[in-house]
Each structure stands twice: as C-alpha cells, then as structure tokens.
C-alpha cells in the first residue's frame, strides 16, 4: 500500500507540468549560466555575502544595531538555508530514481524494492551534501546559531560562497587545478623544508639563553616567515649553527617563491587562449542578429571589413594561420570548422534566433558546398549566401541549399560591359556610393508610424530635404515603382529607395518618424 502510494506520487510529480516547470526554473536560476536572470540572482547573493562580512567587521569594535544584527543572523542565514535546500532538491531527481527502480523491477517480474530505491536516492543526495561547495554552503548557514560565539566566525565561510557566483574566481580555480600535480609537489617539498628547518633551528636555538626561539611553534613560525622571503625580523637565530640553517632556508625560500610564481604564470599562459575562447563563446551567446562568415580568405576579408562597420560579424575558420590573420585585422574569429555540426553545438549558436545570414566565403567550392550542406542538415530556413569559384559547381551549391550565389567572374564581366558601355554614368553612380562622397543609397521601410503622417508620395517632402526618391518598392505586389507620381499611395511594408547626403538622409528619416508628434 505504502509502496504503491510512493510510486503513484513519483509518477504524479514526474508528469506534473507545474512541478517540472518550477524545478527547471530553480535549476536555471541556480546552475544555468546561460539563463538571463541568473546574473541578477548572483549579484543579489554577492551583495548579501559582502554586507554580512561588513557587519561582522563592524561588530568587532562597535555595537551593531539590533535590526542589522537580526538581518545578519536570521534573514541572510534564512535565505542561505532556502538556497541550500533548493540546491539539494535540484542536485538529483528522487522521482526518476523511484520510477526507474520500479520499471526495472516490473520488467524483471520482481516486487518493487523501495529500500533499494531509497538507498540510491540517499547516495545521490549524500554525494551532493559532502561536496565541497555544499559544505561551504552549510557552514555559511551556521551563524544562524549565533549563541555559539565561535560559530560567528563561520560568517567568513560565506566569502567562500563567492566562488559560486563570481566567474573569474572559478576561472582562477580551474587554472590552478590544471597544475594540481605541480602545486602538490611544491607543497610537499615546502612542507618538508619547513618541518626540517623548524626542528633543526629548535634543536640549535631552544637551549640558548639569548635565543628568541624558545618553542617549537616559534621555530615553525620563523621557518615559514623566512621561507616566504617576508622575514619580519621579530624572531632571528643567534647561534652560528642557527644562522647556517637560516641561510639554507633563505636560499630554498627564494627557490620555492620563484617556482611558485613561474608555475602560476605558465598555467595562465597555457590557459589564456582557452579562456579567451570561452569568453568569445560566452559573448557570442549574448549577441543577436549577427552575420556568420564561414571561411576567411580575400573576399571574406573585404566583406567582413565592410559589414562590421554597421553589423556584428563572427568568422568561423578551421585554419589557425587564417584565424591569426583575421585576429590581426581585429575581427571576431573562432577557430572552429564551419563544416562540422559539432562546431555549432559547441558554440551554442541558435541560428534561427541569433544569425541574420550565413556567408560561405571560402575560396574552395568543395568547402562551401560542405558547409552549406552541414547547416542545411539542421536548419532549413536560414539565408545562406555563397561565392562560386568554378562555374561548373553552381548546381552543386544550389542543391546544397544556398539561397544566393555570387560568381566573381560573372560580376567582373558585367562590370566590364558597363565600363565600356556607359562609362560616365557608371562611374558617376559608383563615385556617389564611395564613402568619401558622403552620398548614400538607403531603403526606408514604411511602418505604421510613417503611414499615419504620410499617406502618399507627394506628402514626403523629399525635395525639401534634398533627397532623391528613386522609387517605391511595393511589398504586396513585389514590384518597384520608379519615380512614382505624387498621388501614389504608400502601404505598410513598402520601401522608399532614396539617395542623398548621409546627413540629409538621417534628417529625412527623422522627419518621417517624428511628424506625427508635431
């Protein structure tokens, strides 16, 4: 009866949407660094920790207000207690263990073994309880029992909780743990030296009436101070034998000190690229509406250079030398293979939400086809653009799902025709588009706001703003109306194709959007 009640309850929780939603919410809030509200929670906890320590410091020499005292001992501790319980809850799923055990037993034709399931659950929970992070969390709650004065010192344990919330501390810890073996060797070596020198100096100095080292503790203290190259000078050896020991300790202290420094520096140097890469991945997750350029070569360099003036651009390149070249130009580049699904998974890019378009700009048609196929295998909608190097491969790029293909030789051919055909007109229009002339061509989308004030072309007053209106693109009919007459009606979603000085264009744009408020 009891067993069936537990199983039913476990199934109920496992299928309950609100229960799962709540659990996922707390998981995201406490553990998922990609969750947008986690940082606010982390900041809140950091403030609690720091205020708690500030109150402790103030309490040392002066009387602390009762309300502050209450806040520190009860409110903060209570919040930490709730956090501890929530973390314990989300650390593993009790219902899953019970359901799995039940299904396992049913399949084998056995009776449900509740005790085995409970044992499993306890193991999971105990494993969490005895983890270092959980112990620190627990110790941080202890000041709740403020009657025990010694426990007040546990407020300092709250500082260790900062490890949970500050990412840079986590990075530092990961760097140090990467050199765990070296640091352990160093620690053992240092401990042996300290132990030996302490014992020797104690033997040499303790019986001398003028000596300042009288106890073994003083000997250990002297060794540590000397070894660390701090050397306060409050305790110093007086016998010649003691001074000989001091010389050895000083020399080995310099060795230990420099070894430790070099160890930390090399660990950082080794991990620097990795840290930078992680930082870029982290930043990418926050960027929306960027262009993803696959492959970095001459065309890519030009395209990224132009695009990055107004938009965010991320480059994926497999070749490390090309990655370095892109970095030198100051572009955001990642050393990942654009033709591998694994790259996109690892980078955590949500193509539908974050990416505006994908540009396959490798100078190899094979790579561009491969990249396009890779992207199409998990995303059908994203706009893919590619360059074509060999005309014979045009169909392959189409089959791979590329939306728009640019064939360099064809473009050169078209331009050659214009050069020789209508050279003056061609050069004039191109000269106007050079950034040095400050003349630009823009397309302005007609939205509801513009439409409220400007229902037809004649009301736009483009000439007053010294703007050339080349025409209107009617989105509904998908056609371009060149030089439309004044009575032409505008509709939401239409585009005005205008040309003019960049300053005047800006003013014209503002005019279109602000007239309603006049």
């Amino acid at each position: 009866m009891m067993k069936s009640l537990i199983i039913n309850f476990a199934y109920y929780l496992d299928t309950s949407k609100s229960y799962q939603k709540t659990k996922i919410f707390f998981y995201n809030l406490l553990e998922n660094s990609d969750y947008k509200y986690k940082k606010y929670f982390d900041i809140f906890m950091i403030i609690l920790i720091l205020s708690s320590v500030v109150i402790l410091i103030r309490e040392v020499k002066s009387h602390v207000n009762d309300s502050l005292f209450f806040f520190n001992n009860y409110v903060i501790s209570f919040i930490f207690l709730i956090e501890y319980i929530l973390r314990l809850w989300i650390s593993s799923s009790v219902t899953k263990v019970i359901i799995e055990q039940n299904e396992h037993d049913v399949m084998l034709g056995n009776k449900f073994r509740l005790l085995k399931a409970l044992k499993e659950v306890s193991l999971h929970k105990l494993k969490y309880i005895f983890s270092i992070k959980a112990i620190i969390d627990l110790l941080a709650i202890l000041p709740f029992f403020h009657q025990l004065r010694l426990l007040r010192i546990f407020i300092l344990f709250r500082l260790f909780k900062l490890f949970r919330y500050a990412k840079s501390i986590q990075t530092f810890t990961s760097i140090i743990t990467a050199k765990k073996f070296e640091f352990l060797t160093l620690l053992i070596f240092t401990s042996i030296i300290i132990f030996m020198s302490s014992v020797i100096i104690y033997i040499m100095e303790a019986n001398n009436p003028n000596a300042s080292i009288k106890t073994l503790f003083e000997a250990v203290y002297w060794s540590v101070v000397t070894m660390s190259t701090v050397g306060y000078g409050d305790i110093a050896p007086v016998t010649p034998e003691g001074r000989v020991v001091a010389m050895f300790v000083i020399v080995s202290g310099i060795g230990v000190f420099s070894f430790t420094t070099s160890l930390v520096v090399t660990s950082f140097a080794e991990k620097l690229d990795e840290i930078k890469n992680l930082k870029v991945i982290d930043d990418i997750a926050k960027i929306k509406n960027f262009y993803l350029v696959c492959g970095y070569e001459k065309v890519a360099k030009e395209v990224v250079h132009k695009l990055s003036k107004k938009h965010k651009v991320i480059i994926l390149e497999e070749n490390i030398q090309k990655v370095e070249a892109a970095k030198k130009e100051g572009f955001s580049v990642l050393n990942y293979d654009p033709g591998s699904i694994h790259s996109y998974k690892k980078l955590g890019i949500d193509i539908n939400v974050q990416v505006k378009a994908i540009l396959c700009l490798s100078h190899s048609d094979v790579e561009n086809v491969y990249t396009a196929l890779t992207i199409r295998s998990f995303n059908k909608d994203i706009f893919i653009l590619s360059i074509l190097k060999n005309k014979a491969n045009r169909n392959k790029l189409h089959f791979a799902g590329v939306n728009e293909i640019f064939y360099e030789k064809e473009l050169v051919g078209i331009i050659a025709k214009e050069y020789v055909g209508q050279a003056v007109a061609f050069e004039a229009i191109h000269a106007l588009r050079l950034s040095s002339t400050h003349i630009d061509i823009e397309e302005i989308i007609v939205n509801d706001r513009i439409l409220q004030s400007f229902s037809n072309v004649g009301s736009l007053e483009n000439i007053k703003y010294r703007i050339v209106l080349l025409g209107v693109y009617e989105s509904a009919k998908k056609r371009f109306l060149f030089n439309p007459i004044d009575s032409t009606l505008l509709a939401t979603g239409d585009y005005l194709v205008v040309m003019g000085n960049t300053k005047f264009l800006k003013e014209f744009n503002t005019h279109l959007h602000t007239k309603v408020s006049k």
Partner: protein
Amino acid sequence: MKKSTALIFGYNEYTFEIEKNIKSVYEHIYILKLDSDGEDSFDLSDNWDSLSQKVNIDDCVAFCILEDMAENMFLTISLRDTFKDLNIVALSEDQESADKLKLAGATRVIPSTQTTANVIVDTLEKPIATEVLHSILYEKSNLKISQITIKDHTVFDGKYPTDIEWSRDHGIIIISVFHQDGSSEFIYSSKATHHIVQSGDIFVVVGYDKDIKEFEKLIGTKCEK
C-alpha cells in the same frame, strides 16, 4: 569616340564572361592567349607588330585579364609603353594590385575581390536598393541610366538644377551633374546646387528609355564618351 574592336588578353574563365557581356557592344572581339602557338597568341616580349598589323589600335579597347598579377602588370605596362592612347581595362585581384595597375598605365581597373565583396555587402544591407541599382546599371529592366549633354540651356531659363521639376515635368530623375574637368557632383551637393544650368553641362539621368529619349530631344543629345 566609341571603339569597335575589343582585344582580350588572357584565356581563362574571365575571358568568357567578359566576351559574353561585351559582344553586343563591339563589332570585333579578339581573344589572345599568352605564350601559345597559333595566330591568336601573344607573349610578353614587347613586340606588338603583328597585332598592329592585324587591327587598328586606335579603334581598340584592351582587356588585360591574366590571372597572374605580375604578368598582368607587365602586359599592361608593355601595352601602354607601345600604345600611348590605348584604352586599357585591367583586372586586379585586390586594391594593392589595382594601385599598381593604375601606375602601370591601365585606364580603368576592375578589382575582382572588392567587386564581389561590394555586391555581397550591398545585397545583405540594402537588398531592394541594390536590386534597383543593378537593374538600372545592368539593364535588367526598362530603366536606363544615361548621360545627357545640355545643348540648349535657354529651355531652363537660367534656373538652378534643383529648382527644375525633373521628375514631374520630364519623368526622369537627375542623379548628378558632370563638370568640365570630368568630376561629378551629386545633384543636391552644394557645388551643384549653386550652378545655373548651362549649355555643355552633362547630367546623369535615370528613367525609362522613352522618357530619356524625349528629354534628349528637348535639350540636346546623348553624350557618347
């Protein structure tokens, strides 16, 4: 003066694309291969006698489209050295080689990488404006771009170009004004707006073929350059 013969130096994929696009403009097109046997070949030895005998150089436009940039530059410099007035259109890989080709004497340079990059960026940033511009420039629609020299300025009665209702009265759009020194100014730039329409001015206009022809009849003739 419009030329009637095109000489394409180099035999590669660019050759076919250029030939395809210019064959409607030129009466004769000669494709010359580098260091090959046969009549249609050339080398970089600086001897252009056989070419001079075959074609009237004064009536030619040369396209230097060798894929090896060093060879292309050498070819350009060699042609310029021999034929001072030849119109040379040269293909460059990037801006660096474009500058060198200009120094070597090329009349116009087509930078292939930049051209592709420009078209890609324009397509992404301003898809509609780019399509409109391309349809005008590459004559994909009835819209045309043309340069027109004003022969009879009395039609405009001492007006400034910006005061004339070009689009309402003539159905065309004036983009820029060309000055005698060859430089162009946007129609609404300060220099152009303070300039009274005079005979000899060149306007770059966009419009339908029919409207442009009617406008030409009214004020002058189409500029051939």
